[in-house]
């Protein structure tokens, strides 16, 4: 089974929570049957639940549209349904995605993205309809009566309830106050300008972020597809990893091995290798950029950064009503890209902590430039290593190289790039004045007056800081006029995982615990004495920590008997640290922590439920001061605070999940 498709009861519980939160009880009930029983046919779901066929189908439609569930394809009967854990979990990220897109492509694109997230996969025509309804009733247009039109509400409202599911929600569950995962509060703590203020802003300046024309909408969609944030939907994306594997392996056997089941090791290796290749090809095809009719050659260049959104494209659509060939395309959000962007954010945060905000900003610029060419964080189907080939041909695609000059061209003029560096380095570059004894420049340098060349060289100094850091945030590649740098994400991702494990231990056991983990990581399996030697401390001070960390599952112990009778006294007692195990344990615990937070939110909401109902009455909304007592207002405010705090924590836990799970494949440990 695919690594990412491994689930645990805790994850099942968490995802069921999220599904219920966003899509209501009916969908959640169907979902929980699948979560508890695994792969099922429709009939089996019906047997395991108390729902009737119509209800189940209704629930399944939602789940399928949102890609929370795989199905085994139409040609094989009967159809099996199976949960897509990764996508289900991704529900917690809805708000974060909006923020990520907004940072990169502006508010309008974020708006489109939010709608796509709400709607699940969508025909472009439906999306257009949501923004620019034709004069006739738009519902005629929708193909299977699902959740069309939600985008419209979304755009104007900025309200809290997940209106993408407003219709379906109502069926079983009238309670619409489900703000937790609905995205508007979502953003991670350290970034500025949260979506909370943003939705308020939207009210304030109505037209900012409003998409003015169909043309503009199409342009945004196209750009999002080109950059890999959105991909076209195909049936094959519904296959679970297991089904996909079976299908492609069969294809390999049929086409490459003449229909013979592989028996010898050589045949098996060929089969394995070619199946992986087929998986890669299939997946890469999902990211192909379709032709957009507008300009005739859509995928012209990925790298031109100065293309401006044309409000009135010369040969754009004349009216909203006209159909275009791409209208039939069904598109959806590409979840892999979200992880890439989250990785960028986290790396930037880490650099900010270590090297300061200017260096972090420069790193951010570099990372975002590379994002366009980075489809995913790691290769899930890597080419198996062939014997004798020591991976010598790790040629780096020039698209993945960045120079200081590239950064200098993009960097904002407002950024004081001289900050965070040794003053001597600045003088060396500007050749103006000297550094006085107190490390003050005798001739101050205004960064906005620097020449392009000086800027480049100063930025290169920051990049050197990045490369010298033990995490090696960047790596020197070659010189082509300027130093070309690339980023070894593999290694960095491992470091990130390690850092989070250390952070966890640090919070629980202080520096001593961290020291122990690092010692074990460096030296492998150690007995007590060797551990003491590495840490230069006495055994007595150490035992408690070893015990605690063992109980927490972050450190492993082993007893190797030395004498025949296996007396513990004579045995060798080894301690070691297994990064993969610690990683999985921490991930599992984090899922559980998230469940507890969701449960607490639910509990806190229950407590104020009567008050919330009252506050939502149409006569009260807008006249709160008049109808609610001071005590009630205070209680409402308190609830908002509590909810805010808990949600924020939830999103931070999600950041941790991303680091532990999404940036790197399974680690071969020790």
């Amino acid at each position, binding site marked *: 089974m695919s690594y990412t498709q491994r689930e645990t009861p805790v994850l099942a519980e968490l995802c069921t929570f999220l599904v219920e939160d966003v899509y209501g009880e009916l969908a959640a009930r169907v979902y929980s049957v699948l979560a508890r029983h695994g792969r099922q046919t429709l009939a089996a779901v019906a047997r395991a639940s108390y729902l009737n066929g119509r209800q189940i189908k209704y629930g399944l439609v939602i789940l399928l549209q949102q890609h929370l569930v795989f199905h085994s394809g139409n040609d094989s009967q009967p159809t099996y349904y199976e949960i897509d854990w990764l996508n289900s979990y991704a529900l917690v990220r809805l708000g974060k995605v909006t923020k990520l897109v907004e940072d990169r492509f502006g508010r309008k694109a974020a708006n489109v993205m939010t709608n796509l997230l709400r709607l699940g996969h969508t025909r472009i025509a439906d999306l257009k309809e949501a923004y620019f309804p034709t004069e006739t009733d738009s519902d005629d247009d929708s193909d299977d009566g699902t959740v069309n039109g939600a985008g419209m509400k979304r755009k104007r409202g900025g309200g809290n309830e997940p209106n993408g599911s407003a219709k379906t929600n109502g069926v079983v569950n009238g309670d619409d106050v489900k703000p937790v995962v609905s995205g508007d509060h979502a953003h991670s703590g350290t970034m500025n300008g949260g979506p909370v203020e943003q939705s308020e802003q939207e009210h304030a300046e109505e037209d900012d972020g409003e998409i003015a024309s169909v043309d503009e909408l199409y342009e945004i969609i196209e750009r999002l597809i080109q950059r890999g944030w959105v991909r076209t939907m195909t049936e094959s994306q519904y296959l679970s990893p297991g089904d996909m594997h079976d299908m492609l392996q069969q294809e390999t056997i049929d086409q490459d091995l003449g229909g013979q089941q592989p028996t010898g090791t050589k045949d098996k290796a060929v089969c394995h290798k070619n199946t992986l290749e087929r998986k890669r090809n299939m997946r890469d095809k999902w990211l192909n950029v379709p032709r957009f009719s507008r300009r005739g050659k859509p995928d012209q260049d990925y790298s031109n950064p100065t293309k401006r959104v044309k409000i009135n494209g010369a040969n754009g659509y004349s009216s909203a009503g006209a159909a275009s060939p791409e209208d039939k395309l069904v598109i959806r959000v590409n979840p892999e890209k979200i992880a890439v962007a989250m990785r960028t954010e986290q790396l930037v945060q880490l650099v900010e902590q270590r090297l300061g905000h200017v260096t972090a900003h420069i790193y951010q*610029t570099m990372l975002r430039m590379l994002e366009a060419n980075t489809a995913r964080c790691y290769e899930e189907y890597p080419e198996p290593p062939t014997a004798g080939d020591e991976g010598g041909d790790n040629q780096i695609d020039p698209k993945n190289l960045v120079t200081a000059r590239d950064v200098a061209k993009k960097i904002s003029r407002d950024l004081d790039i001289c900050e965070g560096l040794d003053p001597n380095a600045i003088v060396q570059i500007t050749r103006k004045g000297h550094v006085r004894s107190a490390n003050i420049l005798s001739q101050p340098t205004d960064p906005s007056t620097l020449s392009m060349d000086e800027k480049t060289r100063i930025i290169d100094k920051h990049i050197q800081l990045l490369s010298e850091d033990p995490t090696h945030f960047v790596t020197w590649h070659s010189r082509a006029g300027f130093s070309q740098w690339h980023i070894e994400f593999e290694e960095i991702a491992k470091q990130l995982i390690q850092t989070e494990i250390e952070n966890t231990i640090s919070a629980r056991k202080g520096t001593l615990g961290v020291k122990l983990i690092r010692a074990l990581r460096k030296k492998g399996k150690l007995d007590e004495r060797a551990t003491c030697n590495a840490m230069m401390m006495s055994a007595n001070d150490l035992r408690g920590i070893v015990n605690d960390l063992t109980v927490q599952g972050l450190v492993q112990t082993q007893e190797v008997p030395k004498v025949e009778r296996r007396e513990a006294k004579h045995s060798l007692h080894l301690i070691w640290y297994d990064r993969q195990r610690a990683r999985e344990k921490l991930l599992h615990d984090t899922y559980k922590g998230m469940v507890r937070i969701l449960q607490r939110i639910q509990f806190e909401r229950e407590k104020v439920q009567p008050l919330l109902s009252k506050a939502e009455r149409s006569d009260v909304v807008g006249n709160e001061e008049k109808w609610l007592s001071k005590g009630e207002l205070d209680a409402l405010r308190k609830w908002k605070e509590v909810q805010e705090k808990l949600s924020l924590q939830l999103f931070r836990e999600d950041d941790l999940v991303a680091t532990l799970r999404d940036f790197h494949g399974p680690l071969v440990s020790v």
Partner: protein
Amino acid sequence: MAAPMAPSMVPKEEEPSAVDLANNEAGTPADALYDKCAQRSQGTVFFQRDLSNMQVAETMAELTMLLQELCDRHLMKLMTFEGEPCWKLRSRAEADKLRRLTPDERLLYHHIDQVQAEGIWSKALRARTNVTQQVLTKCLKSLESKDLVQSVMSVKFPNRKMYLLKHLRPSEDIAGGPWQSEGDFDTALIETISGIVAQHIENETCIKVPGNWNDYERPDRTADMAQKKAQVQGIRDIEDAPAVKPYHQPRDPNSSKIVHKNNPQYPTSASVAEWLNSKEILRGKTVREDDMEQLLEMMVLDGRLEKISGTNYRTVLTAIDTKVYNGFVDAPCGNCPVFDLCGDEGEISARTCVYFGQWLETQSEEV
């Protein structure tokens, strides 16, 4: 007599071989051979071809005889290296002492000599030599009083007395390095020295920059605001990152921060050891490169230093003071003593949780 096996052929420090002319037995060919050997640097190991090249003995047989004589007089010690016999000199004074030993004492001395700096536990010594406990105790005392052997408490096994030759320095395995005393790590000493070393490395690799180090004329804030406003109102390029300029504190000349030095000389364990020894902070002790490496590596584990490349160290800097850990451990559950007992419902659950109650300042359900 069994050939004592040299544990290793690394020449150990020996006492200077004082050629005592007063006690001169010179004149015999054996002494001539001894004197010739003594001219070489001390600790040298001689193979048969080296000795015959000295041309003291006329024939092979004579050489063998001479060597036998020297060995009998304890002036030479026979060893083997990869199956080949070889010899090492003893000082005349030492040989003199050895000659006066009783056979038991000599036997014990021989075994202690074999283990060199590793030392041998008295019990193991008895097992190898088969002498009675009384004899053992008596002989060891006498050897110690004659300044031939010394005893040290083992660091590895705190209740074992280890014996080794007087002139040898006990190996780290039994005595520990400069950081240990009485068989345990000297925490206070380590703390002090690592503090001093940390400061030294910081001076070498970092630079303190005052807040006003680059005091250029800042553009007028109102102009700034106007520009910003224009930016907001203008149609933004879809690809431009929003020009969010994070707020950073104005430059205060009294505040300062520490940044990495431009092109520093990164210290190594050798350079730091040399520096520390030159400061003579550790009275009487010198710190070897190995000892320093142990200390520096420990400081890396501590998060005080970081390793830049194979052998270079520098100070760990953090640009932000506030310590956040991660989303999980900053929430109550991440640090909860009853995490594993906590369930979806029941006595310990998110509803009844006191930790959440404290954290959120809300009421939890009573159980």
